[in-house]
């Protein structure tokens, strides 16, 4: 696997925050997660159950992604964390600080190109990924069929039989009713022509970036206790019909900051009279395009912890 995965072996015995192992999880737990990840890589798109641990961040905040990152990261890695495409959203800041605190030696960055591990919620960076990089997706609901069949005992059977008629019918009904597919994010994909997979709630605009990506893509769902993976250069096809091909969506506008017309844009409401501007959701990409006089390149670990305490050594 990647250098990042080997790195964590070298981390054995290093301690993080007082009383905690490097990257928080104990080595036994990391081994368990890495085994599950190997299985996930071997069967692309297949959901692998794993013994998800309770983390000091809440379910829904990215506990699955955090566990995957903790399992694959080593002190030589460079970590980037984004939420909604941005490095400075509060949850991205919080997760980056968590790793800076519990993984001494780890460097963090906001530059996509410099990162070896990128943990993300809801976006794939605009800068193309390269070989050796690991994308870690936070996944709220790994089961792509759950809205159509809530029983996981049943959806497991459907996956085993590759019976995805339910989803095809749903997409068909969307088109019949609304003229287009209703899912604008978390649009299901077929991986390697075999497994239907949730790409996590990324906008459908990002779906094509998964297809034959040179990076290793890992997905972690903590509350639902599932991992899955898309190995490099794997076929990832967004579900569609021949006469209604998949169509990624973006606002038809230019970024007000960097002028890009091919990126995913956030809409900012500027007043109460309908005024709005669009800016790149990927803050790193946008900053690069604006000419790089921005802060936040690489940082050493151990960012300051403004008044935060997390009960280390509470016994």
């Amino acid at each position: 696997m990647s250098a990042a995965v080997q790195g964590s072996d070298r981390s054995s015995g290093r301690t993080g925050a007082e009383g905690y192992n490097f990257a928080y999880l104990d080595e036994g737990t990391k081994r368990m997660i890495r085994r599950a990840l190997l299985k996930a890589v071997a069967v692309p798109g297949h959901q692998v159950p794993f013994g998800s641990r309770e983390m000091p961040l809440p379910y829904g905040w990215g506990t699955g992604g955090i566990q995957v990152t903790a399992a694959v990261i080593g002190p030589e890695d460079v970590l980037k964390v984004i939420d909604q495409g941005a490095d400075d959203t509060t949850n991205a800041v919080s997760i980056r600080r968590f790793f800076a605190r519990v993984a001494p030696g780890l460097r963090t960055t906001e530059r996509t190109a410099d990162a070896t591990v990128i943990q993300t919620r809801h976006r794939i960076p605009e800068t193309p990924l390269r070989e050796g990089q690991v994308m870690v997706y936070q996944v709220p609901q790994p089961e792509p069929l759950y809205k159509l069949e809530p029983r996981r005992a049943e959806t497991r059977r459907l996956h085993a039989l590759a019976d995805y008629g339910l989803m095809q019918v749903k997409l068909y009904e969307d088109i019949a009713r609304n003229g287009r597919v209703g899912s604008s994010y978390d649009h299901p994909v077929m991986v390697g022509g075999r497994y239907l997979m949730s790409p996590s709630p990324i906008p459908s605009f990002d779906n094509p970036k998964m297809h034959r990506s040179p990076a290793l893509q890992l997905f972690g769902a903590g509350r639902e206790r599932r991992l899955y993976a898309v190995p490099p250069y794997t076929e990832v096809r967004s579900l569609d019909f021949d006469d209604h091909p998949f169509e990624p969506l973006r606002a038809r506008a230019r970024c007000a900051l960097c002028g890009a017309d091919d990126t995913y844009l956030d809409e900012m409401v500027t007043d109460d009279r309908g005024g709005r501007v669009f800016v790149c959701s990927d803050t790193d990409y946008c900053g690069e395009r604006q000419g790089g006089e921005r802060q936040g390149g690489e940082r050493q670990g151990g960012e300051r912890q403004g008044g935060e305490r997390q009960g280390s050594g509470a016994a």
Partner: protein
Amino acid sequence: MYVAVKGGEAAIGHAHAWLAEERRGDPAVAEIGTDQIAEQMTLAVDRVMAEGSLYDPGLASLAIKQSRGDLIEAIFLLRAYRTTLPRFGASLPVETGAMRVRRRVSATYKDLPGGQVLGPTFDYTHRLLDFALAAEGGVPPAAAQAEPGDDSACPAVTGLLAAEGLMAAEEASDAEPGDLTRTPLAFPAGRALRLQNLARADEGFLLSMAYSTQRGYGGNHPFVGELRQGEVVVEIEPPELGFAIGIGEVTLTECQMVNQFHGSRAEPPQFTRGYGLVLGRTERRAMSMALVDRALRAAELGEEVVAPAQDEEFVLSHSDNVEATGFLEHLKLPHYVDFQSELESVRAMRAAAARDALREAAE
């Protein structure tokens, strides 16, 4: 030109400082000690230990203090601490029959071996605010103590029924039970894991599920065969010793519900058991657990599964309040990327609809 909002990092720092201030409250008022919480907020501590799956009144008290009394938050803190603890081994099954009983009531027999022991209960108090507590409080006079009877042994009521052949036998198993904190649940989960899940399920959820069975959604005619509360010894058997040693005591509440069962072709009519066992003096939760356990046995006993409380996957998947609160509250996290997609999608659909309407009008 528009400048995007920055400063997540500074905002978090300030928010944490403000939170710490709010937690402490008016500094002119004495700070609450964790020893005070452990001694005087015992039922809150018990709930946090039960749902936090960690028997440590000191840590539970700290969690309650740190969480400003938000018990789900305290449970979360305790769970997050628990998950980092190494495991040295598993205890032997505790013997609730040997419990040092401080409360033991049966609703099915007026008197029974071991007797009825009311114990420290709210049951027959009048719920009138005691304004004296607000003023001074002080130390209440000591309660009278009875001499222990000759036959202080307390056999389980369900055992008495079983001796008569009226209680359906449970399937005995020496298999090591699974651990749902280490292995993800798969369905059907089986009774051992089900009980494990219910023992740390959210009390409100358990109560409502149990209550729904009483109101006809999967009813099962329950009687409290027995409810007992007290201390039991926890023993481990280190392989190098070869015999059991006691490592401490825990307070437990056990509830055995007796439910009617009409019998089947294979079995004569008899009673069936719903079982509840929880850490601490959390009686409401032990009773709820016993009702839900019995409801979840519907399929096993050949009853029709029609109500939510009888549906194993539904109950077990939604019983954990740390999972539930996390996923619910995560809706506060930014979702503007997804919302932007929805906006574009709705606009596209509206545009298409407007075009269609125009075309129809033209025709």
